[in-house]
């Protein structure tokens, strides 16, 4: 992967922060200063053609990060630079141009396709919006070929989404995302709504398409094994913060953050022998509310190795513990929680 990382990043995210007011409304906004700290000071780079995985539990801000990069919501502060241009400062025209090169695949294969459009119309919509292939006949042929590529029968071009299974709908979503041959696709939990056997089909399809078109992925998911399988580099988020970020192998072999280690340890392994022999870390309690995040390290309330220093002051800085391996913990060390095995 190292050779890929040379040169300019395709996407550069720097100190990205996104807060939401807790209650919207005319009266609430003035009186109520409470805010959801969805994303806090997140920075990372994605290089052309690579897959960057973003894992974390629900409410950790991973989806908001993706949506903010796409500018489906505006960031509170921080910078998102795509292909050399700052996304936050783009005007309407530049934003449209940017979206030609950055596409999105959604989690819910039911809600992400307009039920009143045929799959042919759905897949050709990005082409129409960007006025690529104005010739209707040529466009139709192209859409049929796209459907074929993602493993759908081109004869079904005039069918509606509800006539397909969840896995097939996700293929439609993938065909739509690839229609403009974008440079980056943000995949927001693209397989978590699918059955195991279908999940594998879709993951393979995404890998094949990446090889074919050289597209970079920002792959957002809660399933660690899926993220490990598809990603070149992986970042772990907790309560809006990036806790650890490294290439997939190091992160899974030698996590330096206690949260990463606990997360890996919590994943049930489909292998009874391994399951019986390993000792698991069971984290106590629930993640704190992102409305009133704890002071210091957000993980200190559940961390088995937390010290006084973790509960006070600022969030520990994301520092480079090894070349290309970043970790935000005062006690960053290989497998910091002792006596637990992290076999996946």
């Amino acid at each position: 992967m190292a050779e890929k990382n040379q040169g300019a990043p395709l996407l550069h995210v720097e100190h990205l922060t996104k807060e939401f007011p807790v209650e919207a409304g005319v009266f609430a906004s003035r009186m109520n200063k409470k805010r959801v700290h969805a994303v806090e000071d997140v920075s990372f780079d994605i290089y052309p053609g690579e897959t960057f995985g973003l894992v974390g539990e629900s409410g950790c801000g991973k989806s908001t990060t993706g949506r903010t990069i796409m500018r489906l919501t505006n960031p509170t502060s921080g910078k998102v630079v795509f292909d050399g241009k700052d996304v936050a400062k783009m005007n309407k025209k530049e934003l449209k141009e940017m979206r030609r090169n950055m596409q999105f695949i959604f989690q819910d294969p039911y809600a992400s396709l307009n039920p009143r459009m045929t799959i042919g119309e759905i897949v050709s919509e990005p082409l129409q919006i960007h006025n690529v292939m104005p010739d209707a006949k040529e466009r139709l042929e192209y859409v049929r070929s796209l459907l074929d590529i993602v493993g759908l029968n081109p004869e079904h071009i005039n069918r509606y989404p509800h006539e397909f299974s969840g896995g097939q709908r996700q293929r439609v979503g993938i065909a739509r995302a690839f229609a403009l041959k974008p440079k980056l696709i943000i995949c927001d939990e693209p397989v978590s709504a699918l059955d195991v056997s279908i999940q594998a089909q879709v993951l393979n399809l995404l890998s094949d398409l990446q090889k074919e078109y050289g597209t970079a992925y920002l792959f957002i998911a809660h399933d660690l094994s899926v993220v490990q399988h598809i990603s070149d580099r992986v970042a772990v988020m907790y309560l809006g913060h990036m806790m650890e970020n490294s290439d997939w192998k190091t992160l899974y072999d030698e996590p330096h953050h206690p949260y990463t280690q606990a997360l890996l340890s919590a994943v049930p392994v489909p292998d009874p022998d391994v399951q019986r022999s390993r000792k698991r870390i069971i984290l106590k309690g629930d993640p704190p509310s992102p409305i009133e995040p704890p002071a210091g390290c957000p993980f200190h309330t559940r961390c088995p190795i937390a010290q006084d220093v973790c509960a006070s002051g600022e969030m520990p800085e994301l520092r480079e513990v090894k070349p290309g391996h970043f970790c935000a913990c005062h006690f960053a060390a290989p497998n910091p929680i002792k006596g637990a095995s992290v076999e996946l």
Partner: protein
Amino acid sequence: MARKKNDNWVELKDQPVPEGSHLLEVDDLKMYFHTQDGVVKAVDGVSYTLDRGETLGVVGESGSGKSVTSLTIMGLIDMPPGKIEGGDVRYRGKSLLEMSEHEMEHIRGNDIAMIFQDPMTSLNPVYTIGRQLGEGLRLHRGYTKEQATERSIELLRMVGIPNAEQRVKDYPHEFSGGMRQRVMIAMALACDPDILIADEPTTALDVTIQAQIIELMKEMQEKNGNAIIMITHDLGVVADVADKIMVMYAGSPVEFGTADEIFYGASHPYTWGLIRSIPKQVKDEKKPLTPIKGNPPSLVNAPKGCPFSPRCPYAQDICRNKKPEPHFVGEGHYTKCHFASDPDFIKKNAPSTSRTQNAEGGEQ
């Protein structure tokens, strides 16, 4: 007081399991839905046995009938459109299918309890946790309000909810998802049931919370000795908890055996496909996954032969035309595949496991 004195009711839970039978025996159970579009064979010949202290994992994809099987056992299927087409369910030697609705009401919650995937919708938002916890106790055990509250606090403490005296007065929305699932478990265990049916209990939860809930269920089982039926699509979860595993496909079990038999000695192509579909821990090189081709079948126009034949890479003519009978690979380990009796076929096509790799002396 649900049970009147003159009711010559036999508390089944106090009866010994008859000689030669098991706590729960499901014997070739068939439950079909008769719909406008045709007959949906939701449960098509399910058989298994379960004893106290055991955990049965039921694995399958959506629409495989894994949930419907349990709902049928609990008598929670509306009939019609559902109809029992054959087979039997015996609990402590007594057929549940022959029981009256009145008798089943007593079985549910008291002898066999159930927890569901979504802890939010299974709790009533307008009643306090304490009231909902106590309901079963007052119904089945005739507890007074005070006794029920006291026991509720005890139960909440047992499932690890801090500050139980206060929390018993809270409403469901004041609990997090994981806490709610703890409440559901407390509620299910309130009457000390023989069998706990858990339908995807951790699917809606985060992985660190899932680990807590699984740990809790194991702890409770150790303490109470109840049996668990764990319905899930996650092979990792069954590998963690199950003693026996039933793999279901299109309403019928394709393979049944102990956890070790399923994970290290599976003999059905669908089980192989499932095992191959999961991304595995790899140390060096990533390999593409081997998915099962195609899509799950519709249960209405089920194939004439083996339900898996349209997606099976090894399917022959016989598979498409004849339904396979259970073939016993080992004692208590059966497979519904025409080729299961051929050891060469299994040896050639079965996926490699951590055990075979260790045996071959390859890297772990």
